[in-house]
Every structure is written in C-alpha cells, then in structure tokens.
C-alpha cells in the first residue's frame, strides 16, 4: 500500500494503469494526476475505458497492472475509513425505488463518521419539495440530483461523478452545473466523466481525453489539442460566393479585407476551432474503431 502525507496536494495518482478483459485491453498504461481541489473531466467515446478507469479508482474493479493511489491509499485495499472520504455517483441507477428522498438521504448519512446535514443537502440539491416522494416517482433529473445528494452526504474530500447529466434537459443541466461549482468552491476534488463537451469546458479545470483505453491528452480546456495556437478561419461572402482563408493572424486578414471592401466585409465570420472540433480530431487520430454501445461494466 502506498502512503502519502496528508498534506500532499495530489488527490489521485495513477501510473501505468492497465486493465484487460478476456477479449481486449480496456485500459492501457494510463498515467494521470488529479490535484486536490481540482475538477478533472474524463472525456472519450463509449467503450473508450472511462468507466473502467473511474471504477478502478473507486475500488470497484481490480487492475491488472500499474500503480494507483487515491487519497494516499490503494483503492484495491480500501478500508471503511477511506470509503468515508470519497463520494461516488455511479451511472444512472434505478435502485431503492420504494424509499423516499428523505429516508434514503438520512439512511446513507448514518454510514459516515461526519456526514453533512441531510435536510441541508436535500435543500441544496433542490429536492425540498420532493422530500417525501418515493424514488420511483422522481423524474430523471430529480433522480440524478438524489444520486448527487447520496454522493456528497458523507462530506467527501473527493467526489466521482460518472456521466452525471446524461438525459438532462438544458435547464436541469445548468442547475446541476451550479451544484458542482459550489462543491468545487468548497474545496471538494471532483473527477467526472461526461459526453458533453460544453459541460466539460464549463466545469473542469483540466480535461483528460481517453480513447481505446489510452490517455490521449491532458490539458486545460483552452489548451486541448493546441487549440489556442490553431489557425483561425476567416470567412466572408461576396458576389463570387463564399470565401475562406485559414490564418494565424486573423486580425490582419480582416483589416486587409476591410480595406478591400472599403469598410464593411459582407458576411464576415472569424472561426476558431471549437472544443468539439479539437476533441473529435484527437480521438480520430488515435484511430478508435470502437463500435460498442457502452463501456463494459
């Protein structure tokens, strides 16, 4: 077992993490650090190995090779004290259908040595009006917020969120983002997986892109795939049709066009690669030919 000092500013340290299933290598030599207080988003197509990585960090799955230290301990030999320091929000669930929101949150609070106040947590995730409602009667978004309430009730130092907002409407997603932002402000380290690039860009300090079990890149959202250095595309439309120029100096290009058209450039747009463009080019470069419809569980 690896032990690191409590004041260590690394919450998660992963070296050479490898997991094999009978027919394929699901996770292949991943190196990753998550700093304390940081929000790290794990991105990647279905079947890329996101959930497998996260579940090895949570102590649910055994690794075949590599070193993992989560809050200074090996999750493979996790004890109850360690479990009381982490919070887990698994992929969408349908368990405990007959219990009410308040019954579940109070019950789970009883598992932890220093839980948050159940009523406060219920109010905080916005389920106050649904306190007495059985889980089976909650909408998808409400159900997910209950999952988060159960994930944070133990007052975790480190919170794992696996695809927390899948199936949310835009309003529910915004509300959910606010919850995560508040947790981050409170000092909670967060590791989340998501398919939504806007979500990752909005919430995460750093993005880790995983494809075919390999870590492709770890970077700040603005820097991913050398995004900040990428050429811009200047587009305009005149009688001759649509024109575009790729350039590293778009301001100069626009100034030139402005002179040419003596003022207003018709249909002017300056385009930078979006996070989605960068992400898609990253994962296609690693020639991911995954066709599975989901991560192996």
């Amino acid at each position, binding site marked *: 077992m690896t032990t690191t000092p409590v004041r260590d500013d690394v919450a998660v340290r992963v070296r050479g993490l490898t997991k094999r299933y009978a027919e394929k290598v699901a996770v292949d030599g991943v190196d990753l650090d998550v700093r304390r207080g940081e929000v790290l988003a794990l991105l990647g197509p279905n079947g890329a190995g996101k959930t497998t990585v996260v579940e090895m960090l949570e102590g649910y799955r055994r690794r075949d090779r590599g070193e993992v230290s989560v809050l200074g301990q090996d999750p493979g030999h996790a004890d109850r004290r360690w479990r009381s320091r982490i919070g887990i929000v698994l992929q969408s669930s349908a368990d*405990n259908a007959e219990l009410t929101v308040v019954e579940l949150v109070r019950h789970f609070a*009883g*598992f932890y*040595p*220093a839980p948050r106040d159940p009523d406060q947590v219920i109010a905080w995730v916005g389920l106050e009006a649904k306190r007495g409602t059985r889980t089976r009667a909650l909408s998808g978004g409400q159900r997910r917020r209950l999952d988060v309430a159960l994930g944070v009730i*133990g007052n975790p130092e480190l919170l794992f969120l696996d695809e927390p907002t899948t199936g949310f409407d835009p309003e529910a997603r915004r*509300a959910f983002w*606010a919850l995560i932002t508040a947790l981050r402000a409170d000092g909670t380290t967060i590791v989340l997986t998501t398919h939504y690039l806007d979500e990752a860009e909005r919430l995460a300090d750093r993005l880790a892109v995983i494809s075919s079990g390999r870590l492709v890149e770890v970077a700040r959202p603005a820097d991913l795939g050398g995004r900040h250095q990428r050429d811009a595309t200047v587009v305009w439309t005149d009688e001759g049709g649509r024109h575009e120029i790729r350039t590293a100096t778009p301001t100069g290009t626009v100034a030139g066009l402005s002179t040419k058209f003596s003022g207003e450039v018709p249909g002017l747009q300056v385009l930078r690669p979006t996070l989605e463009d960068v992400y898609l080019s990253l994962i296609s470069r690693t020639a991911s030919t995954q066709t599975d419809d989901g991560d192996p*569980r």
Partner: protein
Amino acid sequence: MTTPTRTQSTDPAPTYRPASDRPATAGALRVGAARAGIEVKTFFREKDAVVFVFAFPVIMLGIFATVFGGDDGEAFRVGGVSVPFPQYFLPGMLAAGIMLSSFQSLAISISIERDDGTLKRLRGTPMPPISYFLGKIGLVLATSLAQIALLLGVAALAFDVELPSEPSRWATFGWIFALGTAAGTVLGIGFSSVPRSGRSAPAVVTPVVLVLQFISGVFFAFNDLPTWMQRVAEIFPLKWMAQGMRSVFLPPELEAGEVSGSWQHGPTVLVLTVWLLVGLVLCLRTFRWSRRDAG
C-alpha cells in the same frame, strides 16, 4: 420538473470538515439496525412481496381449509384419531411461510438489488458489509414472525384450530423456527447469485420453492406421495421443517402416521444444520456486490 432556483443552487455546499476531525466509523450493529428498518419498510411497500411471500401461506391455508374442510370439519384420520383439515394444514403452511420469508424473499430481493445497483451503491460507502446481512436477517425475522403470528391467529380464530399449550411443544417450535430461518436465510443469500438478472429472479426462484412445497408434504399429506418423491424431498430442508411443525401442532397419536413412524427430531436437526453450513459456505464463496459481468 422543478429545478432549484439560482439562489438555492449557488449556495455554498453544506459544510466541509477536514479528515482529521472525523471520529471512528459508525458501528456495524447500529448500521445493521438501520438497514433492518429500511429493509422492512421496503418489503411492505412492495405489493408483490407482500402478496407472494407474506400473505401466500395464509391464503393457501384459507383455501385448503375451506375446500377440504367441508361441513363436518373432519378430515385426517390415523387409527382412531381424526384431525380437522385446518389443523392438519397449519404446520405445513408454517414451514412454507418460513421458507418463503427467508429463502424466496432473499433470493429474489438480493438478486434484484445486485442487478439494479443497490448493492454496488452500498459497497461504495463505508457501510460495514456485515451490516447489510444483519439488515437482511432483521427483515427475515420481522416478516417471518409477523407471518407466523398471522397464520396462528387466522387458524385459531377463523378455523378454530386448538393451539398447543405445553411449553415443550413451543420449545420444539422455537428450534425448528430458528434452524429453518437460519438455513433459509443463508441459502437465499447464496441462491441470489443463480438468476442471471433481477428480472428473471422471480421466475427462477418461485418454481423451486413451489415444487418443494408440493413434494414436502405442505399441500398434500406426505404419506400419500410416491416413495421416490418422498426420497427426493428428504434431501431438502422443507420436508423436515414441515414434519417438525406437525410434531408441534398435531396430537401425539399421529406420530405413528408418519412415513418413518416417528417425528424424527434428531435427523431434522442434522439435516437443517447441514444445510445451514452448506448455505454459509456458499454465501461466503459466491456473494458479489456487483453483477456477474463486472470486471
């Protein structure tokens, strides 16, 4: 859908306490008691479970006693002794009830909980694993005791069955109940790994229990069954539980009417204990917190 207002959701997260302030993790017994409370609540909110586990033996007792009881209320004769049908069926229904409340109830519910993620979620918390099983034991005790009280009440009040008054008979009842529930509980936990999914669990578990009820002398007099069927039933616990319950609730004269001519208390203890140990080993070796396909 109601979404939290902006003020609500931008509130700072409820207070964080650093790790060093935390007292030792919660006690396994206290958490086990909380689990038992949650289990009982969940059980009685699931109408399927209440009908097919809890009320089933009572319903069957009512049907059999009414159909076969007839007007004269006379039924089962051995030598010069006759026993009313409701009294003859009661021991079998008690044994079946114990099996339903322990084996069937746990085999189905744990299988579903493994499939729907209940177990996985619990495993990710500092809940002591033993507390989960303590909760299940609490559930079995609560449901089977309530079921027995209901059966005895219905038998005594609706069908005028005279309940025994000798303490020695209730002592016999006590150990059959204890051994039967214990064996049923561990075997139910073990068997929960057999169904491939939660959805198929009732279809896999219910027939096993139903067949055992038919061949173990619960619905029919054990003596009337073909010999080979009696031999098969003797392998399993239910036959012994039913026979033991007959020794509690039937007049001593009927002991001669048993296939072996005896209530066989010794062999009953032996068979139930062996099943208890087999079940315990199965649980320890096969219990999983996540689905079979998880790595």
